[in-house]
């Protein structure tokens, strides 16, 4: 074989090898928001090889919708409180709060206050350096979807997921943690308030199941306990509420075959019972009321 041709082949292989290495290095550069899609999750959030999932607050809104419960305008965080939030911690907590309120008010119909709440979320997003996520296009899209609550739920979930990923990728995990905590506190408060008015068993059971969600919220915040006094305060308050849940006892039973398939979906016919509930409910509702009012004041 011609030596010249052989050397050219060898040189080409070397070039290919070097380009593979460089592609690996390029992919480690800090991601901009335009790069952030679900294909590029590169920050690994693991605490002792475990992940603690916190459900979307939209789920509680949809649950209330299914029960035919209309939102109560007077119980959400008033827009007039917005000017009180001057620290980044307060802004982050109430970004979560207003985000949940926005979804809650749009469970059924367009709320005349939607524009105000979208503006509040957008303002806090900008002040929390998330303006690249909550752009004018996003703002306009949310307003255009206000007549379609299902599409709005989808869209808001996607936006908040992107915001979460963006903040984790840009070292704003503490802010992200406070947003998650604020969102959970507001959705739990709305749920408890609804139970106070309607006393429906399904809502009661959903309240008690929040014990496990709260455990996950606390565990996902725990790595940041030492990072700021605001997070310490938040975690301590949430732990107090977790103690209120400790009196509850959960027991699940199953059919002989634990699950059966219904059109490719595994359906678990479990029956779960919660015991020691009477006193716990009063204490839990009182505690979440107190914490939520502290967050929004």
């Amino acid at each position, binding site marked *: 074989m011609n030596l010249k041709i052989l050397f050219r082949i060898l040189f080409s292989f070397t070039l290919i090898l070097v380009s593979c290495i460089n592609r690996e290095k390029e992919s480690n550069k800090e991601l901009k928001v335009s790069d952030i899609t679900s294909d590029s999750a590169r920050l690994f959030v693991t605490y002792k090889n475990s992940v603690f999932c916190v459900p*979307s607050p939209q789920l509680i809104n949809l649950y209330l919708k299914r029960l035919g419960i209309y939102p109560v305008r007077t119980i959400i965080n008033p827009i007039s409180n917005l000017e009180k939030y001057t620290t980044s911690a307060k802004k982050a907590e109430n970004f979560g709060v207003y985000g949940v309120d926005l979804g809650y008010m749009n469970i059924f119909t367009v709320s005349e206050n939607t524009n105000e709440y979208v503006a509040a979320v957008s303002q806090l997003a900008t002040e929390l350096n998330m303006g690249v996520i909550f752009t004018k296009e996003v703002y306009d899209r949310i307003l255009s979807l206000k007549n379609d609550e299902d599409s709005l739920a989808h869209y808001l*979930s996607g936006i908040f997921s992107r915001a979460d990923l963006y903040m984790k990728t840009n070292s704003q995990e503490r802010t992200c943690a406070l947003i998650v905590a604020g969102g959970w506190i507001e959705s739990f408060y709305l749920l408890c308030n609804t139970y106070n008015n309607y006393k429906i068993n399904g809502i009661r059971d959903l309240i008690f199941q929040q014990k496990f969600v709260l455990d996950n919220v606390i565990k996902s915040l725990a790595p940041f306990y030492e990072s700021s006094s605001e997070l310490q305060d938040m975690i301590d308050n949430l732990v107090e509420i977790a103690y209120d849940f400790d009196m509850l006892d959960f027991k699940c039973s199953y059919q002989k075959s634990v699950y059966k398939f219904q059109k490719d*979906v595994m359906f678990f016919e*479990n029956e779960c019972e919660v015991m020691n509930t009477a006193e716990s409910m009063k204490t839990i509702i009182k505690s979440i009321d107190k914490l939520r009012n502290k967050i929004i004041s």
Partner: protein
Amino acid sequence: MMKKIYSLFFILVLTTATYISGQKRNVCNNKLLEGFVQDGPEYSLKLEDSKTGKIFLSFFEGFQYRLVICSENTKKYKIALYDIEKKVLFSGTCEDYIKYLDLKFKSSIACIAEIRVNDYSNSKARFSISIGFKEVVK
């Protein structure tokens, strides 16, 4: 001289092939959640010196869920789902990087999904976890 060049060529090809195959990565994306509302953010799990990782999650009655577990670098792994009393609800194996489970529960329940890698050299296995839900139409 030609023998040496061919040997060098062979070593270079072998090295390149080994490097590229070692770098093979699966791309995880959320396409499997189309039609579902994403339940919370996409979570990431990196196993640090352990063959087992745990995902603590809740499922509520009246909703159908899709739990998607995707690995960038581990093709085969085991998945098990337990309730809080450690009763095994489901056990299976992922054969090709990504596995999803479609689930619904008669009563709301807290669960633990456990991922276990077989090969000890995969003790730095990486996973992304996404959950979607949609209402069950009665």
